[in-house]
């Protein structure tokens, strides 16, 4: 088991280096560089200076090695060109909002998908099952940015009950702690609901599929034949086996949530990693682009690693 985990971990690290190298090369292969953007305002001399300050005048392999060694040895991601502050500070400011949004969205997603998925898996072929199957398909066939816009249209314009952007109101500093919490929750509501509902469509189908597969096995029939209550058969006997695939789904769905939250953060002006990354890409802020790509890749690899570990724990055949 330990050997298996170590092998997967080593593979993940190699993949991480590959992802970063590829991003670095792609970024520099693309025509133009950050100093082009201000070409209208800068003289040739100023641009040369800027290129020297950014280290862009150096040969590409040297730039790459410098960046890699500074990240790997000192954990230093450099200085953001567009924000004029250390990348680490920008990341530190953006991480809590992203985590908050992600956890809230996950909560909504599973609060919908788990009970409903189990309910329909208990009655396959019923009207409820067909209804839920169609509705969930419709939900995950929507572009998440469009769902977000429709939610803004409905809940902050037609019926203005919720704020549609940012994380805090203007007078946040003057509020009491209770008011602050309420203010935060009100700002969190739309993005978290949109992301959670959107993600629940696919997850619900997967929960249903996993449980349904388990429920047709012989040992479930045995449990029913023994006269156990249906509730016990589903939640204890069925769920115990279905839990591993469901946890795996959970790990994989984290990746989908990462993509979704990038778009949601841009639309709702949520001050998190997604918006930071998007704005850095538009501003060609290479250090921030690389750092956010690195974090996203670490996140994806960690999610996959988690899924592998769960799989290995549940299925001894994988560990060989």
């Amino acid at each position, binding site marked *: 088991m330990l050997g298996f985990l170590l092998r997967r971990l080593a593979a993940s690290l190699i993949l991480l280096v590959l992802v970063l190298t590829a991003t670095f090369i792609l970024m520099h292969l693309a025509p133009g560089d950050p100093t082009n953007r201000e070409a209208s305002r800068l003289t040739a001399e100023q641009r040369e200076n800027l290129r020297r300050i950014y280290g862009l005048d150096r040969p590409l392999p040297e730039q790459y090695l410098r960046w890699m060694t500074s990240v790997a040895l000192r954990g230093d991601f450099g200085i953001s060109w567009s924000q004029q502050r250390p990348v680490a500070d920008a990341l530190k400011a953006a991480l809590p909002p992203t985590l908050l949004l992600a956890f809230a969205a996950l909560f909504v997603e599973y609060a919908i998908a788990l009970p409903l998925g189990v309910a329909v898996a208990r009655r396959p072929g019923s009207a409820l099952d067909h209804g839920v199957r169609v509705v969930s398909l419709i939900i995950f066939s929507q572009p998440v940015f*469009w769902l977000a816009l*429709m939610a803004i249209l409905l809940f902050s314009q037609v019926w203005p009950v919720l704020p549609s952007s940012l994380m805090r109101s203007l007078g946040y500093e003057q509020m009491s702690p209770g008011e602050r919490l309420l203010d935060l929750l009100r700002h969190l509501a739309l993005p978290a609901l949109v992301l959670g509902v959107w993600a629940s469509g696919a997850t619900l189908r997967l929960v249903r599929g996993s449980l349904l597969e388990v429920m047709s096995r012989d040992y479930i029939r045995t449990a029913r034949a023994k006269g156990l209550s249906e509730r016990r058969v589903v939640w204890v006997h069925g769920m115990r086996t279905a839990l591993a695939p469901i946890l795996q789904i959970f790990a994989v769905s984290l990746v989908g949530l990462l993509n979704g939250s990038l778009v949601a953060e841009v639309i709702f002006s949520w001050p998190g990693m997604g918006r930071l990354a998007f704005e850095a890409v538009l501003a060609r802020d290479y250090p921030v682009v690389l750092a956010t790509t690195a974090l996203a890749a670490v996140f994806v690899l960690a999610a996959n690693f988690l899924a592998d570990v769960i799989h290995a724990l549940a299925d001894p055949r994988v560990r060989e």
Partner: protein
Amino acid sequence: MSRLRGGGPLFHWGLVLVAALLLVAVLAPLLSPYEPTEQTDPAVSQYRPPGTVLAAVHLAHGDWRLADRVERTPEGLRLHRLGRVEELAAAEVRNLTPDGVADSRRFLLGSDKFGRDLLSRMIHGTRVSLGVALGSVLLALTLGVAVGSAAALGGPVIDGLLMRMVDALLAFPSLFLLIVLAAFFRPSTLVIVIVLATGSWMGISRMIRAEILSLRSREFVLAARAMGQHPFAILVRHLLPNAFTPALIQATLLVGQLILVESTLSFLGLGIQPPTPSWGNMIAEGREALARAWWIATFPGVAIAVTVIAFNFLGDGLRDALDPRQRRGSGRDERAAEAEAPAA
């Protein structure tokens, strides 16, 4: 085709919808009431709600003017334009009739900031969005089949190398990377197609490889080998035709996924560039005027959702009808497809 009857009603709905959408895409210039970029008198025609009909006055020097309402007067024509009244002499108007003018402009789904007809833009957007998605899927299918076959038949070294590459690409934070690619390379339509295909062929290649590996030891393949057929002939005549059904199903589902990804990129301003209409960039334009003109962002989103649903119905139905091994209910396959699709 009788096997397709097993697809169920959702499959038939999917088939009908996809056929209708393809028809709209092919016949776009015939079906759309106006040119997608046509701007006539934008001061009057901008941000008109669905169902608006404006009178179109053809002026003597060739231009068109639009008006909410026109009246015949003894001298010529009286135009009501956004509450302002203007008078024109009869000689200045080409399309005069006894009670007004002969032409009108009808905005069935409303108009946008430049007074362009939303319906016409959506119809032409069908062509762009479907074209990009189908093109990318075709490219991804080609890549996937080539890499999958090479991995299955090229020996353990090539297999190991190619499959590790697939693993690596699947570990990329997909949307993230697409955004980086699309932002740094000026996105022409061709670049978008290539970028989308590059991010989505891996699932198909894994599937083709697995299918070929399981088919390779079947009797009909062994027989072909015993008869001395060239390995390439065996691949083309025996292996690929039999491995093609699952690949086709996955490709169908991929069309829906890529329509979502393309629309996301276009919405973020990194995909199809205006003035070429794509559903994604139309929603981006609608976002700016959400409070003033809800219809601009709403209708293209409905088009995206209907299209993606149609392809999902079609793919699900194809799976149910053609591939009994993967009947619904087996969580593993759906999970694998979910993990490999570049989610939007």
